[in-house]
């Protein structure tokens, strides 16, 4: 475990160094792909906070991010500065996450999934129908990125810094009593309530935190593309976030980043070279579910734990084994 932590430190340092070096060595186009990956990773991390910590899988998170995006977009189109843009986005995100939270805090499992799906569709519908505000299907154009991060590489650094901050914040939450409460809710609601915890409140808090991070991703996304349309709130987007989390590893700290790299990489980059990229993505997803059900990061952690201590510290013994036979 200790050695693994040290290895994690080294890898983290290499990662940060690589991220800082990227704009100096990579062509602008690849830097813009990295920016997209980082934004997707923040959004996937917000889904992961709910799915991994609290056991609530949301397939409506694109809706929360889109609310933030629309807030920024509307303010920017109306000539407001960064402050008001963020204020409007924050207000919208708070309102939307509160609606998500209040309607779902007494549910779990499939019911939670279905309600978030419905709420995501409502957000999409509103974006499509309130055309005087949102521009309808056409979306909003002429959105300006804030001046200090106008250049692509400046914006890249901003996104990278925000990603690091978000991942650290997630880790802090994870280690805090609040995080323990979340995991308690995930593992046994009845036990938590008999211990005197309010399960519904814990879930509401988790959803609000998750919504906050999703909102951050939404702001970055609209600044990145300088365009917003209802496509940002579609079911497909929300579902893709869950795919990212599952591919990366549910509940792992770096899973969302790895998952986002793979999914965004295929969608935006590999698709220029491979015609049947959706098939590729599908096969990859199936392979992960069959052979590495804990996701890429989860599988690597299991390997890392097994290696130094000769396999004696396997905490989740039989996870991948029976499935492998089935494949």
């Amino acid at each position: 475990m200790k050695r693994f932590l040290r290895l994690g430190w080294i890898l983290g340092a290499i990662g940060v160094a690589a991220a800082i070096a990227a704009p100096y060595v990579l062509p602008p186009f690849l830097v813009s792909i990295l920016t997209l990956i980082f934004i997707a990773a923040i959004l996937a991390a917000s889904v992961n906070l709910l799915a991994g910590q609290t056991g609530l899988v949301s397939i409506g998170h694109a809706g929360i991010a889109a609310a933030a995006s629309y807030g920024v977009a509307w303010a920017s189109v109306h000539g407001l500065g960064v402050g008001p843009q963020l204020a409007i986005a924050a207000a919208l995100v708070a309102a939307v996450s509160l609606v998500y939270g209040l309607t779902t805090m007494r549910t779990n499992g499939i019911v939670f999934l279905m309600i978030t799906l419905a709420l995501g569709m409502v957000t999409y519908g509103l974006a499509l129908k309130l055309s005087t505000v949102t521009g309808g299907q056409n979306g909003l154009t002429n959105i300006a990125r804030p001046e200090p991060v106008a250049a692509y590489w400046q914006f890249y650094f901003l996104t990278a810094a925000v990603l690091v901050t978000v991942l650290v914040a997630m880790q802090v939450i994870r280690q805090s009593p609040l995080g323990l409460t979340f995991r308690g809710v995930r593992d046994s609601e009845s036990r938590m309530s008999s211990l005197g915890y309010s399960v519904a409140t814990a879930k509401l808090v988790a959803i609000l935190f998750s919504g906050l991070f999703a909102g951050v991703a939404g702001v970055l996304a609209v600044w990145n593309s300088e365009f917003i349309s209802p496509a940002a709130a579609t079911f497909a987007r929300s579902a893709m976030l869950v795919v990212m989390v599952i591919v990366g590893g549910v509940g792992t700290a770096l899973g969302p980043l790895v998952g986002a790299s793979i999914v965004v990489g295929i969608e935006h980059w590999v698709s220029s070279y491979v015609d049947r990229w959706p098939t590729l993505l599908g096969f990859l997803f199936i392979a992960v579910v069959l052979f590495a059900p804990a996701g890429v990061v989860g599988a690597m952690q299991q390997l890392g734990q097994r290696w130094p201590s000769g396999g004696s510290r396997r905490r989740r013994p039989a996870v991948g084994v029976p499935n492998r036979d089935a494949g």
Partner: protein
Amino acid sequence: MHRATDRRPRLRVAATVGAAFALLVAACAPPGAASPSQAPAGSAGTGSASAPAASEQTGSQGGTVKIGFISPTTGFVAALGTDMKRGWELYWEQHGTTVGGVTVETVFEDDAGDPEIALTKARRLVEDENVDLIAGPILANTAYAVAEYAADQGIPTLQITGADDLTQRQFDPHVLRVGYTSSQPLFPGGEWAYEQGYRTAVTLCPDYAFGWESCGGFVTGFTGAGGEVTKQIWHPLGTQDFSTYITEIQAESPDVVFVGSAGGPDAILLYQTFADFGLKDQIPLVGNCCFADQVFLRELGEDAAGIRSFMYWVEGRESETVQAFVSAYEEEHGEIPSLYAAGSYAMADVVARTLEETGGVIEGTDFITAARGLSLEDSVYGAITFDDTNNPVGPVYQTVVAEREDGTYWNVVEETFEDVSQFWTYGKEAFLEQPVFSRDFQSHE
């Protein structure tokens, strides 16, 4: 696990320092990235004044111009994107890729019908491939996203998407539409309906921008001539059951019903319900560009005979250009080309003719200005010119579904309305003073 928590403060501090450092770095310009970042990428305007650095570098050097072609060849509108690609390829196969002394090279990209992906692809085309021009994509939101980005980079784009505002309130000199706006063919449609003696109308359109604009065109034409629209019905895209909407039409029993459809399953289900309710012989139905298209006709065949529409691409029009295109396309792909294939063919036509004009040079707005100056006598749409916001002024056809010699069904022309403008008869200024068509704004006064 418990021992691990002791390390946390250190981790936290280290990570915070790391983040702060990253922010600091962000504040200073990386020298390596200095040259490409000189252009202010995020300027608030439409970027008409920004230096077209990329196109100056490439220009027509080495006798090649590079065109980026973005269409959705995967995802929910993959059929349209595939047709577009085929139309584009067929033009260059027929006419050769050497024109105006240069060779035209096309780089195809798939946007999956998603504006984010479309934007990434546009970036790749501009930054990696150094294209001189972008053609496509088709969906309104993807088109807006790409057109705005490309304009900021000084790269001209050709579009066939219907979204009205692209050549109206959001006009940019880098953008030329080689198709009609959604409302454009339907202004004469509304007027024609009144002239047929119809006095009351009900409209049925999908509930989003394309539907609002299509219905808006018809309503403006019809009420402008003196007719009365007694009811406007909006249905969600992807409606499975049209019976409630058809019942409403039946209850209203208007002189004529207008259907502005985006095509596909919606159009087919709608018409089947309309026929099942026995309204086919009771209430005359008028469609738009995309209602009784080839997808629809392949499905319904004889049942569709006699449907009248207002279109600008008519596969059965008696014209040498159209019939040469149709038979070549049929030979290669075994089906009559759709509006999307024809639109791409028309875009390629405009590119080729403009390159001849400019001697093989594509340079920012100059290329678009040259293209706008074209007067196409025999395009697949007919004789078209362009107005000063880069939209075609050309013929609109009143069509009817008829049987071809070989037993397949297609649209043929019954009446032609020449030189229809996107601003109808109002003129640019008066038209643009009014808001863009929406659910709540359907008729120009």
